[in-house]
């Protein structure tokens, strides 16, 4: 067993699960979407990105790309949230929440791709 591989897979899967946990629920209902969960998803996603740096294989390059997409989507979601809460007068409303959740849904897709690639890589390894 390789400790590095465990950590690598752990962060990739955790990024997906946290992201999915935030995304699930009624799209426009702020009560269904916990901000701490979004925060954790961003942090784990960033760590997963850094872990993928420097892998020169083709699959490594695609993994890095999907991770960067997930980061971008999640950061965009958090910026939308922040602007709604602090900059605009209306505060957090149903439509704004819907756009935050849909941005995070994009990140979920990217994270699923990551996990599929990880599984493909694992299956391809022959002992």
């Amino acid at each position, binding site marked *: 067993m390789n400790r590095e591989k465990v950590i690598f897979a752990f962060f990739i899967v955790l990024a997906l699960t946290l992201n999915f946990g935030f995304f699930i629920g009624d799209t426009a209902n702020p009560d269904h979407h916990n901000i701490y969960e979004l*925060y954790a998803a961003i942090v784990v996603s*960033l*760590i997963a990105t*850094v*872990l993928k740096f420097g892998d*020169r294989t083709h699959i490594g390059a695609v993994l890095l790309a999907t991770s960067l997409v997930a980061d971008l989507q999640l950061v965009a979601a958090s910026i939308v949230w*922040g602007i709604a809460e*602090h900059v605009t007068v209306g505060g957090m409303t149903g439509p704004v929440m819907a756009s935050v959740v849909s941005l995070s849904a994009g990140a979920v897709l990217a994270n699923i791709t990551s996990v599929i690639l990880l599984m493909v890589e694992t299956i391809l390894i022959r002992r």
Partner: protein
Amino acid sequence: MNHILFVLLRRLRAPLITVIVVYAISILGFVLIPGVDDQGKLWRMDFFHAFYFVSFMGSTIGFGEIPYAFTDAQRMWTLVTIYATVVSWLYGIGKMLATFQDQAFIRLMKRLSFVRDVKRLREPFYLVCGYGMTGSRVVEQLNKRGISAVIIDIDQGRIDALETDDLDFNVPGLSADAAEPDVLSEAGLESPYCVGVLPLTDRDSVNLAIAIASKLLAPDRPVICRTESEITTANLASFGTDHIIDPFVTFAEYLALALHAPYKHLAYDWLTNPEHRSITSAYQETRGRWVICGYGRFGRALYQAFKGMPVELTIIDMEPMSVAGDIDFVEGLGTEAVTLEQARIKGAVGLIAGTDDDANNLSIIMTALELNPKLMTVVRQNRSTNARVFAAANTDLVMEPSRIIANNIMSLIKTSLLGDFLDEMVHCKDDVWAHTLVNRMSSVAGDQELDSWAFTLNKSETPALDRAIEEGKAPTLNLFLKDPRGLDRQLSAFPLMLKRQGKIKLLPGELTELLPGDSILFCGLTEAQYQMQWTVANFNVFSHVIGDPDGQGGWLARWYRQRKKHS
């Protein structure tokens, strides 16, 4: 090859993760710890404010406790996170600086910047492999002529020297093994601007590898290769290396020429060496017995070159085994009077100090001159930095192999016709002929550098002449020599050779009529070459030179003249 950013990021993986984790924990702490607002009510920092606060705290900017004054619990957490963030930043920055100073990383960056420099070269360049004494001389002379070069050398020290060497423009250099095809490719072997490959390293196997790689990857590039053994020479010739230069053979032939045909040698020297010797330095008394000190590769080549000439040879060397047959031989170094006397130095006509050690060579010459002041001395100078000492040593001839080879290569680069001319002169003409040639060169060039250049009569090189021939005019050779700025003056140049359909004519007469396809080799001052370029390339200047007023001017002027004539 653009993965330098990824190499950097991979090395910074640990510090980056540390920074992310420390920031995440700090922000989360500020969000969770309750505070109070200005009215004393319970207030929790949200993620936006927490990120804002940690950002300016971590970078030690410190705007204060924003938006409300902190409670003691918040201050305690601030205390913890101040140290945590600063330490994680310092760790990250330290790691980054360490990466930039890492030798492997620096090598990678240098290589990438070299590849970029080569790609940016938008002018013809020569690929020089080996920046030793010969290589540096060739690059210096190329530079003086405004030709670029790209250099590969295995020794980083020599590439460092490249930056401090006195060159007119920036020459990209890489420290790598030129025998690897990848390295050659990165150095621009396949670039359309590469006009030739010069493998000049001191290892035959490397030169061979470079020559083969360049003939396979870019068959059109001319290769001028240095080699030190006959086996490699034959090998190189077998796959079409354009020019092969053996420094020892070249040097020995040069020396033999100097001693047996002094004027031929002077002509040779004037045409190949930019700092040619004066005309009075030709030697007369060369028949008799010569003593050669040092029978290495150089001595062997010398022995071959002297074969069949009316001279006797005595050889002094440390190793008796290397001499074969019935040669007069004395064992020793030659620096002591005893050895030299054994070699009967008093009865000898000349001495060649040809060992590969400069100090020994000088010592040999000085000892020998004490024993026999009338001796003619030839000394081999190995290192160019010793030039001052050798100039002061008062010898008849200083031979610097690297300089001779560099000059040889330069004359091949200037024009291939020069090689033909020198061959023809050395093998088919006598010394009296060479004497008149040298006198003529001397009257043209004086003490200045004698340049040489060639034209081939065709559309691209000599458009004006080509058009004149098409119009039925028959230009003669003396047209070239008229100064377009004043027709009563002659340019400081004269034709050396005319090559017509593979046939060579040396010193063609000035009234020779020219035909399309002729190649003409000139020698003279560089200034004359510029003027000659005008005559052969610009039809107006050409018309002026042949005294044809109808051909001059543009279309409008000609039309106007035509009209005036008719009316």
